[in-house]
């Protein structure tokens, strides 16, 4: 049983820590873009909420409880990235947003519902006779992979802050963070918008 659990954990982990998973990686980068290094707990909560969201749809879809139109889901995945970037840009005070501190994890969990549906089809086909343990292991592997991607994203964001401070040494810390959020969110949004157009199901 242990070897089975570890095998499916590796499958989930490798599915995320993989350059082919660029849409997933950019989504995590967009989610992490608003946080400072000292906010790592908040970033981890958001990523975990995202995992919970996609675990729910994955379980529902794999067990056949929910059938989803795959073309629509593939289109909605980059749309969630665009929406996250727009949220990064336009919402400046999240403490006063609806749901307060729970607002961003809820938002990530809802978008996680969409992402989970993206690969449910593949797993449903493969694991028709034995689902619970592979699914659990796969989700744990996805979460671990996301934590690794988040760690890389943190290094990238710290480097971006350093580059901004080097170019504009007079900028105060809040303005540096704002500029980083604007730059990263805009670039990621443009790339994801292109993918959304390419995957347009209509």
């Amino acid at each position, binding site marked *: 049983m242990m070897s*089975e659990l570890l095998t499916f954990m*590796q499958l989930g982990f490798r599915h995320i820590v993989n350059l082919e998973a660029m849409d997933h990686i950019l989504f995590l980068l967009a989610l992490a873009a608003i946080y400072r290094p000292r906010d790592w707990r908040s970033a981890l909560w958001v990523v975990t909420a995202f995992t919970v969201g996609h675990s729910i749809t994955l379980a529902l879809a794999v067990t056949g409880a929910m059938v989803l139109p795959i073309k629509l889901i593939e289109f909605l995945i980059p749309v969630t990235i665009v929406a996250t970037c727009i949220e990064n840009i336009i919402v400046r005070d999240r403490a006063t947003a609806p749901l307060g501190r729970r607002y961003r994890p809820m938002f990530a969990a809802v978008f996680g519902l969409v992402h989970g549906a993206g690969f449910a089809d593949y797993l449903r086909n493969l694991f028709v006779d034995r689902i619970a343990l592979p699914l659990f292991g796969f989700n744990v592997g996805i979460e671990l992979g996301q934590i690794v991607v988040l760690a890389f994203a943190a290094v990238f964001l710290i480097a971006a802050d350093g580059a901004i401070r080097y170019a504009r040494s007079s900028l105060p810390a809040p303005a540096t963070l704002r500029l980083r959020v604007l730059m990263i969110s805009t670039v990621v949004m443009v790339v994801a918008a292109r993918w959304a157009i390419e995957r347009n199901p209509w």
Partner: protein
Amino acid sequence: MKLASLARLASLPIALVVIAASARPLDAHPLHTSLAEIVYDPAAKEIRISIRVFIDDLTKASDAYARSHRATAKSPIVDYARSAFIVADRGGHPLALASCGSKPVGDLMWLCFRAPSAGLAGFQVTHRVLFDLYADQINIVQAIYNGKRTSILFTRGDGYKKL
């Protein structure tokens, strides 16, 4: 408005268009994986193998295999699977896997093989199906024998692994 200000104003949309144009198209992120199950039947003294592979991928790989083995390939899908999925006994000798049919199940093709054997403990297996097609292909082998279940994961570059 001065020329420098105009240039600054125009630089952002131009940069964004360049980024959008240079981003490579991205297909939906598929799970490149296949599953094989090896079960030892002590009553029949044989092993039974079921390999589940996505039909579209298997067709591409077996077509390429058939093109490069024109003289020998009779059933490209079965021959391709046999060339990429190998079970070897304790002495390292590959077992002769006889096909026991195939059937499409949803998007997958289920391939069946069997081979006479006195056991499975200590045997080695390699599952290289579709490694020639995808760098991120991950194959899983589950072996069921002597009342236990073992899982092994294969990625490109892996050779034989012990059950």
